[in-house]
């Protein structure tokens, strides 16, 4: 994926100097390995800081809602689906956007690599197509890229951008025959008490920092329900009921909109698998209404519409 770096720099230089856009949103290298950071470029002399490798998991669509300038944005498959969701929800106009589509082979999970380094501090990471070479003081390790993919990337079925103005590389082959929901089915098979305990344990480490909310491109409400005080739906403490209410409602707000980009999980400082909440909704929406978020640009989101014959087995 490194080869995109030059393409992104070239496109950014061209778009900025021709004044096609005011801002380019991409990534630049972080100060430590595996930690690329989102970067807003406003002038041509910053263009060479733009960078791309397998650590660009943050969803850049997060920086688009309610922008007033013309922006170019680098978009992986999931980012482009979130851009479609933004367009459907009138968060930005298509003519403000110049989308640099990045066909993606998945981003790597920093957390699992760090765990396997067992406390050794990586100082430098270099990758080619298949491997990631990590070195630090007195050690060198090679990780296989494919085995360290983020869990959502491993089951991704939309690697190529769905909307774009320009592609940064040839489209990649989509993964076929992926089972997206083995973990959901495993939880569904539990008894109700087991499920309760499972989710209690899942969110037990939560410190209510709201990183999952802030990293999510769908969370753009001017006032989030957790910040409302009259009425106050959720307490601000780390009381288990409050924490579960937060995670439940956060996930519920993603119903039919979540593209499973994994930003929430990547952002979580304590490593909670928050996608366990959203994936069930994704599965339900697909089964009940045959909808996948952000794939078809002119299809209304499932909770924004209805059909006369929608399934209602739960209603008396």
């Amino acid at each position, binding site marked *: 994926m490194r080869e995109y770096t030059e393409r992104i720099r070239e496109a950014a230089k061209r778009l900025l100097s021709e004044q096609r856009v005011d801002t380019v949103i991409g990534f630049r290298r972080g100060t430590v390995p595996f930690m690329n950071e989102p970067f807003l470029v406003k002038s041509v002399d910053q263009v060479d800081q733009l960078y791309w490798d397998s650590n660009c998991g943050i969803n850049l669509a997060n920086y688009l809602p309610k922008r007033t300038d013309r922006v170019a944005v680098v978009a992986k498959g999931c980012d482009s689906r979130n851009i479609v969701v933004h367009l459907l929800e009138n968060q930005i106009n298509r003519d403000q956007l110049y989308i640099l589509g990045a066909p993606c082979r998945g981003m790597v999970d920093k957390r699992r690599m760090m765990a396997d380094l067992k406390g050794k501090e990586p100082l430098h990471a270099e990758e080619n197509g298949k491997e990631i070479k990590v070195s630090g003081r007195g050690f060198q390790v090679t990780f296989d890229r494919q085995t360290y993919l983020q869990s959502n990337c491993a089951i991704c079925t939309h690697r190529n951008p769905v909307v774009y103005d320009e592609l940064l590389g040839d489209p990649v082959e989509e993964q076929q025959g992926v089972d997206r929901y083995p973990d959901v089915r495993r939880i569904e098979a539990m008894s109700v008490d087991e*499920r309760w305990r499972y989710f209690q344990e899942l969110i037990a480490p939560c410190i209510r920092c709201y990183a999952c909310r802030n990293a999510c491109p769908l969370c753009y409400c001017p006032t989030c*329900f957790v910040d409302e005080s009259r009425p106050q739906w959720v307490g601000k403490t780390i009381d288990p009921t409050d924490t579960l209410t937060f995670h439940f409602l956060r996930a519920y707000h993603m119903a039919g909109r979540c593209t499973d980009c994994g930003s929430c999980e990547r952002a979580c400082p304590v490593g909670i698998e928050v996608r366990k*909440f959203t994936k*069930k*909704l994704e599965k339900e929406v697909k089964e009940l209404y045959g909808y996948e978020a952000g794939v078809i640009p002119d299809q209304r989101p*499932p909770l924004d519409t*209805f059909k*006369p014959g*929608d399934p209602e087995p*739960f209603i008396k």
Partner: protein
Amino acid sequence: MSEWEPKIVAFLCNWCSYGAADLAGVSRLQYPANIRIIRVPCSGRVNPKFILAAFRSGADGVWVSGCHPGDCHYIEGNLYARRKFALLNSQLEYTGIVEPGRLHFSWISSAEATKFAEVARGVIDAVKAAGPARHFIKKQAEVA
């Protein structure tokens, strides 16, 4: 201690189910007094937060009732609500917050007083079978 009786919060649509409750009363139809009715303008007005808030404050059961599909006073409020509740219902069971038998939905028109009394009895029996709410109750700070 007397036998436990469940507390059930019922969100009833003003234009149908609330009328049905009224008609059931006028017709002297009998059903146990476990439901606390909250009148809402439409089942589409029932925000999922309301249902969570009821459970958080210790309700043993929640019942939402509105007009039959196609009969909504606001044309389509209950049709949007149906999708919203389908996802809410499955997600609440999935996370174990709500055991089967605590959360109920129904369509009852204002003429269906007998159906109202029947469903009310059914809801109350189901919540009794589920027992007192155990999970997901927000403990209030004790004031000295």
